[in-house]
């Protein structure tokens, strides 16, 4: 075996090492498409690139179907006049249903949160979509959220307001704000419990979830 002549500690840089990084130029219109996709929530630069290449591989018809679907959804779907979830009817099917419990309102940040509750089917009350959370940094104050509308609904005789907001600091501030604005109103205010997912092995629950689960423990 031949040994390298120079001190092995200080090898000369090989071509593969130079190739450790490789940046490829992208055509401008493709780059633009990737940028549009990466602006979507939950899509990073890498996924955006993958989707963009997928779109390029589609037939022109399929691409037109896609753009049509986007435009049509945008044209026909609007917020419900009562609960502000996205719907094609007004009021939405949930608000219109005679089977729903009208004394409970579950407050969520955004329309898509409702899907998770409805999939479970455990909740039979109504919803209220705030349209975000209190965040002065993003210019979102009480008047940007549908809090006055919530107050209006609560004043018409509701037994319980369930605050099903996320775990962000902004969500926490929003809960405090709604609690303050409800003021002396006798309505019951509840938050969802946070904890260990049902059926999961305790070994695989992360430390934060475990901590929150302990904080939110209930007596037998």
């Amino acid at each position, binding site marked *: 075996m031949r040994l390298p002549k120079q*001190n*092995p*500690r*200080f*090898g*000369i*840089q090989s071509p593969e*090492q130079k190739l*450790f*990084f490789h*940046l490829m130029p992208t055509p401008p219109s493709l780059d633009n498409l990737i940028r549009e996709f990466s602006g979507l929530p939950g899509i990073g*630069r890498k996924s955006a690139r993958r989707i963009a290449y997928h779109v390029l591989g589609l037939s022109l018809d399929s691409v037109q179907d896609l753009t049509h679907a986007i435009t049509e959804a945008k044209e026909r779907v609007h917020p419900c006049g009562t609960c502000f979830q996205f719907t094609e009817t007004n009021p939405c099917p949930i608000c219109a249903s005679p089977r729903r419990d009208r004394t409970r309102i579950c407050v969520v940040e955004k329309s898509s949160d409702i899907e998770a509750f409805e999939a479970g089917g455990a909740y039979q009350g109504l919803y209220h979509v705030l349209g975000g959370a*209190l*965040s*002065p*940094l993003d210019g979102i*104050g*009480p*008047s940007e959220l549908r*809090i*006055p509308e919530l107050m209006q609904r609560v004043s018409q005789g509701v037994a319980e307001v369930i605050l099903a907001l996320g775990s962000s*600091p*902004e969500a*926490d*501030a*929003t809960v*405090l*704000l709604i*609690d*303050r*604005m409800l003021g002396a109103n006798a309505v019951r205010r509840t938050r969802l419990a946070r904890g260990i997912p049902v059926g999961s092995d305790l070994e695989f629950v992360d*430390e*934060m979830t*475990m*901590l929150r689960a302990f904080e939110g423990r209930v007596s037998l």
Partner: protein
Amino acid sequence: MPVTAIAEPAHQDRHTEGRLLVSMTPAHRRMRCMLHCGLGLVGFAIPCVQCGPRSLHPTEQVLVLRTIFLQYFMFFSVTQSYLGEYTVEGCEIEATFCGVIHLLAQNQFRNLMPCELRFGPGVTVVAGKNGQGKTNLLEAIHWVTQGFSPRTRSFDGAVKWQADEAWIRMEGLGKTGHPVRQGILWRGGAVVTKVDATESRSLVALHGNLHVVMMGPEDIALIKDGPDQRRRWVDLLLSARYTDGLDLLMRYRRTLAQRNRWLKDRRGGTQVSSPADWQAFEALTEQLSTLGATIMVRRSQLLQELSPQVSAYYHDLSSGAEAVELEYLGSVKVEEGDESFVQAKLLRKMTAMRTVELSQGITAAGPHRDDIAVRFALHGASLRESGSQGQCRTAALAMGIVALDVGSGKEVEPPILLLDDIFAELDAYRRNALADLIRAKKCQVFVATPRAEDLPFSADAMLHVEAGIIRSV
């Protein structure tokens, strides 16, 4: 693969409680399990205790279940990345590693000439006169493993003057024991990072695989500079100690930014549009005071607990008999552990300062304004004002070592240490004391020094830096 193993028959029942420590030195080539403890290592040779246990490299310890030991061992042998010491015990399945950096290569980083360096797991000494590039080498390690530098905020400032491309890359084993390859590429002002095969534009992506701590002469700022240095120190400890520590600090910081933004937008209090707007402010105030009180109480408890440890290290490092103590100086007085009481006080204080807050547009009280007193226990004088340069430096070192201790607690692996010239201004006694403390930490250490001959320990490898050129000695 050169291997030495030291078998320690710690217990009679070798099948359940046999203990095997394995360490690699170049002197031994084969091993065999003398304990016949069912590790499946027949065919290798292990020198038994009588044959002479040799001193192990101060590196990581791996505790693995016996049934998977062979797998680990083969993996490290094959990849030639076998690090140090294994402990194999009965039924425990646990593996703790501290990371190791095997290779560092860079191009156009500060004044350094292009180089590719290989490191062993022990102590690597980087010698050279001041201004030749010793610190730059340590800084390069810090950048590529942590994604930031204690010296500059942006990577642009660390690139060689007028270079249009610069990069650093490293290979090693991360804190989970997996091989890690990381790199930073800087090209025309834009940074791309790479962790294994994943590219990203965020330097944060580099953080988390290896735990690296740099200590240097600028640490004296911990004592001499403003309170933000000391707050950062205690918050580091807080996030290492409490599971939700980092989350708590991030939530506080975010809520503080929200509240400050509200104040700034309504400076002078003239533009408050509605009662709902005030209620939003009050909700933010309540939230901030709750989070703030939790932080204050925890910081205070942590300092009460750590003050004796800092004092003990300070005592070890100084030949004199003086002791130091640390105390939390909160926006409001923090009593024993009662968060709701502290929260009420903080809320009152914030309400009292509302006019000031509205005119200045910032939150005027809370843990982000607090300080830590570092003072002589005997007469209560602050080190910052009445301590000598040497005393301040020693106190900063003691605080740094306590941070290592807390950081290497049960949850966190011991860090790789980058020590930049910290022996320089210490007398022989303090140098030896510090060396003992560092040796006890059992990790890979890089020491930069202008006078290698004064070091109180021997180097496992020595590099010499002159005008940016790094040679091995």
